[in-house]
């Protein structure tokens, strides 16, 4: 089959209309779609997308992925522990030792279908308990080194950069560019897709016309090219209307910022704009006081988190999910012992989720260090048995097909022998 511009305009036009985007496609989008279509026809080089979700504030991984098989877990958490399966408001059994927090019930079907994998006792080897430093290290990919200029996902974009690439390769839904996507490579950050626009009140259209004309005539250099692409992207996104978007398969996104961010990521994936790295984050995980048990503060956060991810997976559908991987992370875990205010304090190792294409799901990965006092990190926290870079490295290599892991993690010898085997 010959793929030409006319073919794209027909098929691409249908795809865009299906996700609420109509009108002429901008040229970068044609390039992205042509590259994608060509790749798909040849059966190679399919575009993979990574959706990275950061739980800022340090989620309590021990209550999210509950080691209900450990006596010490119940001894150390007398009021906040999640009950063993079979009891009232209990953990949902995963493998006879670990259970899901009941508020994460929406993710259980993916575990049962072996699409969801979990890594426990994973995190950064650095012992900082500062949210700011630990987030910085996890995003730069260089624990202990503050001077790293860019984030590891931006380094991925840098090392796979191509001329004429889509400006939507790297996208963060959020008000600021997150550290993980900061750097030399093109990436976009926007609080929502429709906010990517010029702001000049009632003169916006006129001013935009002015800038367009100025950049149209600008000499053919990087700035002129960027300018022209910027206005194409602005005009393209102006037609996006998240409130008119109809999720497929009866997917229901939770109300609020997190659900809206995931919905818009799904919308862009369906539009085929060349999205490779999508990032968003959620907050409210820093549960020092009254974190609750099966219900309460943490349960509400987990419910939104689980329902958001479940809606995203259902909306994208199984065929698209073959090329999508969702990876969750948080800067560190929380203390094994509950504190005097029925909460938990800053800890060390934590749990991460991987969900999607190629995941060998239905398994909790990593060595479990145990919660006996002598096994704890600094006598208070879950010890670390998997460096987060071994998870990120495996994702980059097996999902994104990136072979130069040294470029992604310059201060760490990522060794495929240490990969946990999360992905096929």
């Amino acid at each position, binding site marked *: 089959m010959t793929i030409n511009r006319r073919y794209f305009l027909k098929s691409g036009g249908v795809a865009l209309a299906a996700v609420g985007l109509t009108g002429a496609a901008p040229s970068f989008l044609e390039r992205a779609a042509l590259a994608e279509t060509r790749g798909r026809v040849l059966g190679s080089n399919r575009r993979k997308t990574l959706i990275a979700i950061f739980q800022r504030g340090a989620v309590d991984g021990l209550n999210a992925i509950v080691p209900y098989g450990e006596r010490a877990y119940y001894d150390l958490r007398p009021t906040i522990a999640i009950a063993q399966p079979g009891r009232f408001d209990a953990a949902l059994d995963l493998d006879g030792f670990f259970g899901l927090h009941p508020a994460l019930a929406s993710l259980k079907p993916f575990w049962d279908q072996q699409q969801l994998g979990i890594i426990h006792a994973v995190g950064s080897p650095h012992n900082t308990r500062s949210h700011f430093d630990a987030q910085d290290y996890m995003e730069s990919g260089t624990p202990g080194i503050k001077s790293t200029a860019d984030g590891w996902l931006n380094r991925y974009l840098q090392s796979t950069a191509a001329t004429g690439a889509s400006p939507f390769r790297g996208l963060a839904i959020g008000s600021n560019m997150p550290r993980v996507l900061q750097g030399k490579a093109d990436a976009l950050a926007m609080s929502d897709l429709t906010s990517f626009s*010029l702001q000049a009140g009632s003169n916006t259209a006129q001013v935009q016309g002015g800038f367009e004309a100025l950049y149209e*005539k600008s000499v053919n250099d990087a700035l002129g090219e960027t300018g022209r692409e910027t206005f194409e992207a602005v005009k393209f996104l102006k037609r996006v209307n998240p409130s008119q978007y109809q999720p497929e398969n009866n997917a229901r996104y939770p109300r609020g910022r997190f659900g809206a961010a995931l919905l818009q990521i799904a919308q862009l994936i369906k539009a085929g704009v060349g999205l490779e790295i999508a990032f968003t984050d959620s907050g409210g995980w820093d549960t020092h006081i009254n974190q609750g048990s099966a219900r309460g503060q943490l349960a509400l956060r987990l419910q939104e988190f689980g329902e958001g991810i479940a809606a995203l997976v259902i909306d994208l559908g199984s065929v698209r999910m073959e090329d999508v991987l969702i990876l969750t992370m948080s800067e560190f875990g929380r203390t094994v012992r509950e504190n005097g205010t029925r909460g938990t304090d800053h800890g060390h190792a934590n749990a991460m989720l991987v969900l999607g294409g190629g995941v060998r799901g239905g398994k909790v990965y990593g060595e479990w260090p145990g919660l006996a006092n002598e096994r704890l990190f600094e006598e208070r926290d879950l010890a670390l048995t998997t460096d987060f870079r071994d998870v990120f490295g495996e994702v980059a290599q097996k999902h994104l097909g990136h072979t130069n892991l040294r470029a992604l993690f310059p201060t760490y010898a990522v060794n495929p022998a240490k990969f946990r085997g999360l992905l096929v």
Partner: protein
Amino acid sequence: MLDAETNGNLAIHGWIAKMGEPLYLHQAPTGYPDTADSWVNTGALLERLNFALALAANQIKGTQVDLTRFAGASADLNGELDKSKLINAFISRILQGEASPQTRATLIKQLNIPLNVSHAPSSQHRGAGDEGRARRAQGKQEPAARNASSADSSEAAKIAGLVLGTPEFQRQ
């Protein structure tokens, strides 16, 4: 350049951070990069253009520019705004006179398009993060009767915003 007065408050810091070069927060001890490729991307360019528009329209809290001097000095013998004089004033002030003939022609063409002074709210959907800016932008149009000098300063703001956003200026 425009002789802006700023009290250096959070509003201006927020803008500078969004444009990709947060004040005092650059991480490496090597200083801020002065090459274009370290910031030229669509997101940062859009923020810079919006900063230019907001600065010229006096919409950054705590930072003031007085463009009436430029408009005043560009009046013709009848006291009417001489638009090409105004453009030349900005080009010489902001770009040290170095504008390509195409840029100059585009700017003059832009200035001859009358400003939209309707009160109709923008039909654009805005994100939550932009509500504040949208409110300010609409609030600016509140006074029903526009007098000549405020119309002149709107023209001046538009041209100053465009000149600050020219490729010639953004390349520096």
